[in-house]
């Protein structure tokens, strides 16, 4: 029982150390050196780690609690927008129009910042927003949804509708978040040049730290009593209710936590990618997150991370090599994964090690007709 756990811990540590080595190589060696890691690679891996963090968050609700969210891109984008507000303010007077206001506001002929932009010149306030806005939205939405016992596909569909509505809202210029174009042209973060190699390395390391931290937190969580109950919600919610548990608060807790993790991922994503716009919230993005988890293996934390890296790595390669084929490949991936490997890549490995004992699987309750 302990053996695979220690093996995994060692594996995670090794991978994390390896990942931490990249920025060191980036800074220590000049570009022509063989061991140099380019800024592009660093940004790419940093981006993938943000995706992995989001996948981890999604796996927590889908893989462990059985709630399929089709709106997690919304939480991701909200975190990104919160940090983006700070980055827009940090441009100061260096924008195209030379005004204290962000360029898009000058363009709209606004004279002052709207009220919800108050205090966004503070980095820590915006970081708090990146956590609180997705968290509070998820809590309120989740409270009403779970209280009405909306579950399964219904829940998925209304989360999708929520994300879609927010996307339409953010596409409007009058909403005050840059409309179509969103935020971009960032220059500084905490007074430093955002494109400097050392800042890139720092952002990368922060992402890595958050990813590893979130992984540890999730591992502890799913192994705890609370995690057991969550898995009970997934496998036999009515039975859990008959045993005297109220699933509402368990679901609400994990749902909110997941949204917060996703918001953090978004906040880490925006300075490394340098742009955020409403299409981040599109339903397609949310579903793509789901496929990361499905490919890696839902219900396994490492699987979520593995899936995010695999799918996005494939995407980077395909869109460069065969741009027209990427959507075919992604579509095929959706179909093959759901039909042929319901437990994802990690499932293939697990199955070979110990053949699936039918008795261990909780008897599936027949779907109520």
């Amino acid at each position, binding site marked *: 029982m302990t053996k695979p756990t220690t093996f995994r811990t060692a594996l995670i540590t090794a991978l994390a150390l390896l990942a931490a080595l990249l920025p060191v190589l980036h800074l220590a060696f000049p570009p022509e050196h063989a061991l140099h890691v380019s800024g592009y690679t660093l940004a790419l891996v940093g981006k993938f780690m943000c995706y992995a963090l989001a996948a981890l968050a999604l796996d927590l609700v889908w893989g462990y609690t059985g709630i*399929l969210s089709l709106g997690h891109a919304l939480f991701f984008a909200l975190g990104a927008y919160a940090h983006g507000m700070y980055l827009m303010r940090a441009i100061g007077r260096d924008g195209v129009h030379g005004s204290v206001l962000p360029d898009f506001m000058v363009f709209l002929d606004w004279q002052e910042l709207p009220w919800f932009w108050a205090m966004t010149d503070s980095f820590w306030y915006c970081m708090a927003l990146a956590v609180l806005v997705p968290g509070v939205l998820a809590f309120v*939405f989740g409270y*009403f*949804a779970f*209280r*009405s*016992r*909306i*579950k*399964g*596909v*219904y829940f*998925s*569909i*209304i989360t*999708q*509708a*929520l994300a*879609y*509505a927010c996307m*339409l*809202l953010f*596409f*409007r210029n009058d909403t005050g978040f840059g409309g179509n174009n969103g935020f971009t042209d960032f220059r500084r973060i905490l007074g430093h040049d955002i494109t400097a190699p050392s800042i890139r390395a720092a952002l990368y390391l922060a992402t890595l730290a958050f990813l590893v931290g979130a992984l540890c937190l999730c591992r502890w969580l799913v192994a705890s009593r609370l995690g057991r109950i969550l898995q009970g919600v997934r496998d036999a919610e*009515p039975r859990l*209710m008959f045993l005297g548990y109220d699933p509402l608060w368990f679901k609400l807790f994990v749902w909110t936590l997941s949204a917060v993790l996703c918001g953090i991922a978004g906040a880490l994503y925006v300075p490394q990618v340098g742009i955020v716009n409403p299409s981040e919230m599109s*339903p397609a993005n949310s*579903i793509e997150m*789901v*496929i990361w988890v*499905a490919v890696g293996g839902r219900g396994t934390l490492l699987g979520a991370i593995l899936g995010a890296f695999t799918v996005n790595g494939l995407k980077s390669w395909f869109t460069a090599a065969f741009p*027209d084929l990427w*959507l*075919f490949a*992604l*579509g*095929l*991936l*959706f*179909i093959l*994964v*759901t*039909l042929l490997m*319901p437990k994802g890549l990690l499932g293939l490995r697990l199955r070979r090690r110990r053949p699936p004992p039918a008795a261990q699987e909780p008897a599936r309750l027949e*779907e*109520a*007709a």
Partner: protein
Amino acid sequence: MMVHALRALLLWLAAGAVLAAPAGVAPALLQPLAGDDPDARVAAVAALGALATPQAATVLRALQDDALYATADDQVGIAGANGELPEGAETIVVNNRLRTAIAAALSGMDLMAPQAARRLAAARAMLDAEPDPAQLPLARRALAAETDDEVRALLALLVARTGLGAEDPAQRRLATQQLGELGGAAQRPLLQALLDNGAEPDEEVRVAAAQALAALDSRQRRADLAGHLFQGLSLGSVLLLAALGLAITFGLMGVINMAHGELLMIGAYTTWLVQTLFRRYLPDALDLYLLAALPAAFAVAALAGMAIERTVIRWLYGRPLETLLATWGISLMLMQGVRTLFGAQNVEVANPAWMSGGLTVLGSLVLPYNRIAIIVFAVLVTAAVWLLLNATRLGLFVRAVMQNRRMADCVGVRTGRIDMLTFGLGSGIAGLGGVALSQLGNVGPDLGQAYIIDSFMVVVLGGVGQLAGTVIAALGLGELNKLLEPLAGAVLAKIGILIFIVVFIQLRPQGLFALKGRSVE
């Protein structure tokens, strides 16, 4: 071309009576044209226009073409075919102001033209221009002689408009009252001008104008409301057509088909293909291509749907979340497939001729024929689906399998085949919806994406497994959307609707029409 031929003929006729004064027009009327007073010249042109006789038209055209001359003693005549003038005569110089007056007078004369279309065009042109009191007698005469209803309505409006400038206050009052009864929003500024800057000296006329304005506004509000209701009905039937197929695949079968939007798209592209084929091989019957497109779109989408069901969905019954992901993958592949085959650009699907234009009601409200056709089509398709499900053997089997699969199996229904056919039916109806959508908007690879969320909202709101619920939800959402739009703008209305649905589902998770049951789930 015709004008030139006519002119040549007239000039040829005139040339016989070498350059005499034009017949049928009093010389006193023409004399000011030879003079120097610009106002008198314009007035003379207007007077000629008011005559509205063919002879007057001849003179005006001659003037327009620089073929009118004046002799030293102010006798006016038309030059010969080759521009020959009598001794000592000079061509009358026409400046821009006079040219405008001539054009107005000539178009006014079209009011008496024998062809209804020309009279209609003339009346429209005069309504668009500034009202000119000099046209009043002509407009009255034209109204008295007019037989066509559409032209009569325009002429009555024209009489009222020009009457506003009359000398007699009683006439002006009558004109304002008439405007209040007849006019639409376009007449509002005229009436407002009477009230605004004290332009109208007579108290009674001002009162009448205020009443007329109020009447106009209330009628406008009613027309606006009717317009919104119609647009809502139209949007509702579009939603219904988009969601009806889903009401079968998701509502009855419980399959989360995220590729439903792409089945709509396939229907729309089939319409385009049929149109292209008609253009190439049957250009004479192009207007009928829609009739051929309907069965084609149904068949293509149904086949695509059955193929999807047999290859993918069949393996995923009872696992709705996995179905959702797999069908999303199918939708991505279908979109990219269409993009590869037909290009990423929108293709052009034209309305057949009988669908363009519209029905004018309540004065200013235009109901486009294509919208009306789609409402009718939605009614027909819904009725057909209802009949199919409730009055045929296939429908009986479909309902049996959905209600109790095992029992249906036991009594010999081939459930697998019924699954395939039901899914094919839902997909085929989506194809029909695609034909309708192709008549309203752009047809491109992303067409389905715009409708997938709306379709699911309609089915979920209506209550799963309830055809009546789907109909009511679609119409309700359409109306709600269009009534909110003028208040909040299109995007906010859409967001408001989505939030409304999200809240509604919290309150009634089973939708509008829930089946009563005891399940704890």
